[in-house]
Structure formats: C-alpha cells, structure tokens
C-alpha cells in the first residue's frame, strides 16, 4: 500500500496529554511532487483508453455475434464440460497428490521411489503429449480385461477405444498430470510443519494416521491452499488443451462453431469471457478458503471479533464453543 492511501488520522488528539495542554499535533503533511509517477500514470491511462477504443469501434470484431453466442446452448454445454473436467480432475489430482506426497515422505524406499518416478515422468513430459497418448491408448492396449494378471485367464474384456472417449482421455490426462504437480505442493506443505508438532501429537499417544490427519495436514493446508487455488485457476484454462482430442470442452465447441460460420475471433471472445468469469469466481472462492486455513496464525485480534468479520464460517466455529 502506498503511503498516499493511508487513512486520515482519526481520533485526532485533542490536546490533553499526560503533561497537560498541547496544541493540535495531528500530522497533515503533503508529499513532495512526483512528476515521474504522474507521467507513468498518464501514459498507462492513455494506452488503456486507446486499446479500449480500438476494440470497441473495430468493425472486424463482430460484437453482435459475440452477444448471439454468449449464451448459446452448445457453448453452455461446452462450458459445463470445462467445469466438470476442472472440478473432477482437480479433486482427483489433489487426492493423488496427497497419496504421492505421503509416499514420498514414507520410510519405505520402494514407496518413495514409486512416487518419485511418477512425479518425474508426469512433470517431465508435456501435458499435450500425455493427452494425445491417453486418447490413443488403444494402440498399445487394444483391450481391457478383468482376470489374472500376466496373461492368466480372463473373466471379461472390453475394447479400449470404447472406454477411452475424448472425455475419459481428457480426465485421465489432466488428473494424472495434476496429481504429479499437487504431490510437490503437498510435500512442500508437509515439510513446512514444525517436526515438533508431530512429536507433540505422538507424545499424546496419537497413532500416525491421526497425527497426519488431525495435526500435520491441517497445518500444511496453510501452505498447500494458495498454490492449489492457483492450480485450480490454471486448470480452468488448461482444460482448453483437450480440444486437440475432441474433449467437447468450451474451446472445442467454440472451434466447432467457428469452423462452420467462420466467426473465429467472435467465438474466441465468447470462450474468453466465460474463462474470465470462471477464473474470477474461483479467485473469490480462493480468498475465502485461504482465510479459513490461516486460522490461528499471525493475528492478535481476539477470536470473538474475528468471528464477527468471518460470517461465512461462523456456524462451524460457534458450534465448538460452550
């Protein structure tokens, strides 16, 4: 915050100090001139106006088409697929990430190696490649079967191409890739918790699983949540990659429409507006979740007053009070 944004001194001392009467000592200082800043602001403002104007009056942008398609049923269907892809792959990705992170800090060398190999491979290859790979899984494994592994007898089998639709391939690719990134985020979170916390919980007689669930993970969340929010917001847009495997997401359907009516830019704007809406909503959600998990840190405001300003989570907390 710049110093010019400071609120004006309220409760100005009216002059009664310990030693008696004082003249009014409230500070109302003015700043020295800042020509550099004024010039920069002027340039930025002009640039903004110019960009806005050239977009608004540009006849090639077909704003009427944008308006027509913004709530088009096909577009909304694609929007819904994008939301589904994001939410499902994030939820599963976080779960995989937690498991892989716990494997990485495990005492077992085999578990650690397996988790490391997973993270190494899926962070080390491009997501686009992985998506195309999953979509073409049928080329290596023409069928799935249930039975004894290693060429034993089979109970049932299905054609891979029937199972791996564009949506399933998209989910597989996004989830497994996300899990690798989340695993690193979760691991950093777990490492951020003071080892003394674990010892304190163990000294109460808590079994390892509960130490993790009740003591370590909740504290790690403070470190895990902000980057996870970023991953979520990033995932909203990353889902557009699945357009290469006909994932039926927002970008895919927009492309299908502009391939028939040639309104390329208008439909990209339609899609972009929806992406902006989604990321804005997600950012607001992120703000509240972060606030929830910073409970007990870096504040000297009494709980009662903090609860008042945190109405969203009031019920859960007040339930814990007598």
């Amino acid at each position, binding site marked *: 915050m710049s110093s010019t944004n400071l609120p004006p001194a309220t409760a100005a001392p009216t002059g009664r100090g310990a030693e008696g009467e004082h003249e009014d000592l409230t500070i109302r200082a003015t700043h020295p001139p800042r020509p550099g800043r004024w010039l920069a602001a002027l340039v930025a403002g002009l640039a903004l106006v110019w960009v806005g104007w050239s977009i608004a009056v540009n006849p090639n942008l077909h704003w009427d088409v944008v308006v027509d398609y913004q709530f088009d049923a096909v577009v909304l269907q694609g929007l819904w697929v994008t939301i589904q892809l994001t939410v499902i792959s994030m939820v599963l990705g976080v779960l995989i990430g937690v498991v892989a992170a716990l494997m990485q800090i495990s005492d077992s060398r085999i578990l650690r190696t397996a988790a490391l190999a997973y993270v190494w491979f899926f962070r080390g290859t491009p997501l686009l490649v992985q998506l195309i790979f999953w979509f073409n899984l049928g080329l290596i494994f023409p069928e799935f079967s249930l039975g004894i592994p290693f060429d034993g007898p089979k109970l049932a089998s299905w054609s891979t191409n029937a199972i791996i639709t564009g949506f399933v391939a998209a989910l597989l690719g996004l989830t497994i890739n996300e899990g690798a990134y989340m695993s690193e985020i979760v691991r950093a979170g777990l490492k951020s918790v*003071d080892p*003394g*916390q674990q*010892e*304190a*919980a*163990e*000294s*109460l*007689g*808590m*079994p*390892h699983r*509960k130490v993790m669930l*009740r*003591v370590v993970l*909740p*504290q790690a969340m*403070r470190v895990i949540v902000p980057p996870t929010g970023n991953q979520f917001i990033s995932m909203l847009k990353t889902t557009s990659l699945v357009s290469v495997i006909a994932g039926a997401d927002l970008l895919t359907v927009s492309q299908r429409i502009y391939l028939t009516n040639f309104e390329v830019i208008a439909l990209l704007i339609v899609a972009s507006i929806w992406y902006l809406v989604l990321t804005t909503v997600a950012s607001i959600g992120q703000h509240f979740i972060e606030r929830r998990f910073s*409970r*007990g*840190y*870096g*504040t*000297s405001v*009494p*709980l*009662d007053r903090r609860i008042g300003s945190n109405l969203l989570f009031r019920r859960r907390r007040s339930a*814990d*009070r*007598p």
Partner: protein
Amino acid sequence: MSAMVEAVGVRKTFGDLEVLRGIDMTVATGQVVCVVGPSGSGKSTFLRCINHLEEPQAGRIRVDGELIGYEEVGGRLRVLPEARLCRQRQSIGMVFQRFHLFPHRSAVENVMEGPVTVKGRRRERAREEALALLDRVGLADRAHHYPAQLSGGQQQRVAIARALAMAPKLMLFDEPTSALDPELVGEVLQVIKDLAADGMTMIVVTHEMGFAREVGDHLVFMDDGVIVEQGPPRDVLRSPRHDRTRAFLSKVL
C-alpha cells in the same frame, strides 16, 4: 515404594556421535527427579527415549513395569505394534521446551485433542474437563485464545494442561522454562510445583537450580552421555563430589 521408571544401560548414537553412553536411572512413584547438565550432555535425548520419541540402540526402559517400545517374545525383542506403543505413550505426559501447541486450535481445543482423538471421549465432556484443567493452570479466561495470542508462559501452561488431559502416570518436562522470558518462568514453575505437591511422578530436565533444590527429591547431573553424580538436590548442589559437577555448577549458580 515401587519404581515408576526403571532405565538400564540406555545407549543412543546419532551417526558417529554417542549421545547416551549407558544410562541407569530409577524413579520411584511420586518422586520428582531433576536432571541437570551442560547442553549436549544427552539429558533431552534420554527423556525422549522414555516415551520412545527416540529409539535407543541399547538398554531397557520400563515405565510402571512395562517395557517401552518393545516386547519380549521367546527371549527376543520385537518392536511393539503401533497401537500398543500409543497406549504406552498415553500414560506418559510430555512438555517440550518450545511448547509445540497446535497453532490451528484454541487453548481449550489443544487440551481436548488428546482425550477426543485418542481416548474417544465425547466432545462436551472433554471440553468440560479441558476447561477445568485450564482453570487449574490459571488460564480459564484464555480458553478460546489461539496459541499465537498467548504469552510464552501461558502457552507452556496450556501445554502442561494438554499433557495432563491424558491423565498420565508420569510427566516428562524437557527444559520447560528455557524458551521463556525471565519474568514468565515463575508462573510455569509454580504449576509444576503444584503438580509435585499433588504427588505426580516427574522427570524434569532443567537449568533452574533453585527449582531443583526446592521441588526435586533427587538430582541427577549428566555430562557427555553419562550420569556423573546424583543424590539429594541439596547435597549435590552444596557439596558436589566430582570436578565436572563442580565446574558446571560454578557456571550456573
């Protein structure tokens, strides 16, 4: 008088460093043993071996007659299953130098945590008991504060209440006042003193010689991984028999 703690020949090494080189110690039920010595002498490590936060390489530690961390099956030692180690730890309370309160839980929630998650106590009942314990350490009015909103002395008193909530048979204090501002030491020592008066069996690793003299039934001086000297606190503090004890005491008294 039965023995609450019986340690025989406890050895512990970290890499090449031999931290404990054969510790024998017996603590009678209701006794308060103070352990003093220079830093790095192994006092904290020994304390942490008693509730198996550290695994010793040799020796046997028994608490209330039960071998800690292992069981003997057909003359061989076997690591205890987790559930049984956890049960042993429930009866051994521990207070740390740096408190280690759970920062995401309020004072009363810290105290409730053990009874609720480990003993399966109902929340309302655990809360009542926790509030009573906080009252006992003089913090009834701070029950809903988070650790970050409490002073060091208050945090340490909450930590003591948290350990007491498990109704332990034995309390281990690992330099409970070393991380405190001088003016806050007294309030924590007072709580420990009250516990001693109530007959709690305790091992207190401390640098507070005045406390050791006043409250301790027995004083143990450790240096370089061994017990150099022990006896009634007054005798050891007034007329130490070993040079190493004398040298240490001349620095701290």
